């Protein structure tokens, strides 16, 4: 009897252990690992001396950049590591930085997530290495995202100016004109769904990235960040404009309740039941590989406007390359970052399918004239490039946007599955973000 009890007690204890293991799997103290030496950087000397550079990234065209770099500087060895996509990589990076060992020399960080690393001072300011000279080489959206005052925390690797992707076959069949304003978009949604209840104008189950991009395009600037002073306010006009329009779509059940990147999503894009996407210019590669069977059906158009006749756009996604403070050989790390994001390195990556953040590539004839067989031979890059030029200025994300996005569906998501209104959901999101910000030591204003 006694042994039984002990054994069962141990069983209960083991539960405790497994529960706590989840929590202890990652380190805690995110203290500055130091080693922040400044002064003139002799990059050429480092390149001659050679060494190894570890790069954590999931962006496929970097492979080509690494090969080219090694060819040019034979003494340097670039090791590309896929440490996970998005959140997974940031978690790993955060942990490696906190643990004080195992951090890469270069890391891919999406624009929305960069703030989390700059605020904790865990990425190197690249201006002492000479990065300021690229101030005019990049388009303003991405450049704005990687700079803060005079510091340059990363170099833009690609960008995601938004465009409107639509299934021309479906549009033609139901005699629908390509919408130029969001009001026309709502009309098109109604017409389509009425003509065939299986067809939805788009899918949406609540996506923080898409919502913030729409608000950005509508002129809303809910986030303001000034060092550790943060303002979060979803009460502004742009946000309200977005919420009012989107509420119509939700109320009338005009968007498919299908999550992006799910199997059902790909299926819907292929069979025409999800008729449009308003998404970043990096989408064509995904359509070509993931929705191959619908090749020829799709076309690209400029994003619908909030005010008729406007030409305002926004960014959706996009990544930069940053050098963690914990990197071992920062000069080499910078040299590779510079190579992969600017000049010939960037052009080579664009030729592989990456969407440029560099003005030169965006304006090059070869890029603009590229014909997309998937879009029936359309020169889609011209639309994307135009969109990149029209990205609304002065947008900023929160320094803790990764967390904020993770609770989007807990708050705003309610509007998708209950009678909660979008504006109330956004208010709840604001409150939860404010609470987190305060807990994390920020001064937060509403």
């Amino acid at each position, binding site marked *: 009897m006694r042994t039984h*009890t002990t054994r069962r007690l141990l069983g*209960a204890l083991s539960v405790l252990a497994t529960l706590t293991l989840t929590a202890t799997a990652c380190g*805690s103290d995110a203290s500055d690992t130091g080693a922040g030496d400044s002064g003139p950087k002799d990059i050429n000397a480092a390149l001659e001396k050679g060494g190894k550079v570890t790069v954590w990234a999931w962006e496929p065209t970097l492979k080509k950049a690494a090969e080219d770099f090694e060819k040019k500087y034979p003494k340097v060895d670039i090791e590309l590591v896929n440490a996970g996509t998005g*959140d997974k990589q940031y978690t790993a990076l955060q942990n490696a930085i906190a643990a004080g060992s195992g951090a890469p020399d270069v890391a891919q960080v999406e624009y929305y997530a960069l703030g989390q690393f700059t605020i904790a001072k865990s990425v190197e300011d690249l201006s002492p290495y000479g990065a300021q000279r690229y101030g005019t080489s990049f388009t303003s959206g991405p450049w704005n995202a990687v700079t803060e005052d005079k510091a340059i925390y990363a170099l833009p690797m690609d960008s995601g100016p938004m465009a409107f992707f639509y299934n021309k076959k479906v549009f033609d069949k139901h005699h629908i004109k390509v919408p130029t304003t969001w009001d026309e978009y709502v009309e098109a949604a109604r017409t389509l769904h009425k003509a065939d209840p299986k067809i939805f104008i788009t899918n949406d189950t*609540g996506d923080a990235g898409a919502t913030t991009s729409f608000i950005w395009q509508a002129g809303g600037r809910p986030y303001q960040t000034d060092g550790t002073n943060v303002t979060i306010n979803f009460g502004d006009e742009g946000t309200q404009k977005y919420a009012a329009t989107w509420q119509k779509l939700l109320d009338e059940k005009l968007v498919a309740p299908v999550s992006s990147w799910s199997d059902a999503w790909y299926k819907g894009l292929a069979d025409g039941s999800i008729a449009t996407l308003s998404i970043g210019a990096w989408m064509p590669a995904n359509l070509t590989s993931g929705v191959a069977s619908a090749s020829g059906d799709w076309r690209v158009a400029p994003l619908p406007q909030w005010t008729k006749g406007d030409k305002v756009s926004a960014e959706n996604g996009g990544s930069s390359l940053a050098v963690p403070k914990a990197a071992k050989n920062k000069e080499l790390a910078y040299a590779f970052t510079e190579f992969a994001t600017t000049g010939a390195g960037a052009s080579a990556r664009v030729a592989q399918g990456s969407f440029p953040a560099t003005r030169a590539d965006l304006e090059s004839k070869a890029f603009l004239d590229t014909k997309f067989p998937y879009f029936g031979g359309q020169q889609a890059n011209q639309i994307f490039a135009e969109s990149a030029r029209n990205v609304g200025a002065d947008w900023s994300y929160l320094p803790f946007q990764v967390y904020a996005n993770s609770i989007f569906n807990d708050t705003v998501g309610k509007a998708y599955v209950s009678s909660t209104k979008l504006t109330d959901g956004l208010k709840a999101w604001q409150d939860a973000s404010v609470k987190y910000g305060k*807990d994390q030591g920020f001064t937060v204003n509403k």
Partner: protein
Amino acid sequence: MTLLSTSAQAAPPPRRQARFRLRKEALVGWGFAGPFVAVFGLVFLAPIGYALYLSLFQDRLIGGTSFVGLDNYGEALTDPRFWDGLVRVGLFLLVQVPVMLGIALLAALAIDSGRLYGKTFFRVTIFLPYAVPAVVAGLIWGFMYGTQFGLVGNINDALGVSLPDPLSPSLVLASIGNIVTWEFVGYNMLIFYSALKVVPRSLYEAAAIDGAGEWRVVRSVKLPAIRSALVIATIFSIIGSFQLFNEPSILQKLAPNAITSDFTPNLYTYSLSFSGQQHNYAATVAIVMGVLTAIIAYAVQLRGMRKG
């Protein structure tokens, strides 16, 4: 006299030897237990200790790490996101565990009755889902639950009906319960069935001689005989319910608005730690949850083992 002196002289050596033997035996004992104790300490006590240590600090993006004593515990005990999750798994437990154990018990009794044709086939089929990893089970069921392109959608189309969406906020807990039941009925059935197998056949004969019918035998012989197996299965199921993580975490991708990041306490701990870098608070919530689980499981055991 001589006898006495010799005995007096002879007496000490054996005692010394005994003490020596005792030490040697202890060493041998540690030799056997050592590896276990080392592993136990490393993978078991150390993480708990580390979690306890973590829970006393707060690590902030601005300001770094500071010692906060029991503040995190105070916050956890008044955190509505934690309590909502706990109430949710509590409700889950109250409905799902009796249903699952009831079905498992019925299946075990049916197999044990010996009146079942194709007993082995029956046993294997019921047990099979347990061999499917929880993550895969979540994916399979997630696909079947889909109203757009899944099985439910297909049924709706084919029959022209409109079944309620299993992934809607009001039904999703029941849908998860269905998956968990499907997964663990076979496992619990095997526990019950093995307990039934060791019941002495003579008891059944005695009952038959006394004129007991089949139901009477089940009620008065079989169930009391497997009482401890029932208690163990119940405790395991309670622990499993409080640990609920895999199934909701998989379905979350399909129903992000129905399954929130704090849907179950375990899911909450996970999101705190991996989305918000709140490792200290996550450790605190995990410890509170672990203690609560231990208390409830222990209470159920005491109650279950109490002689009627």
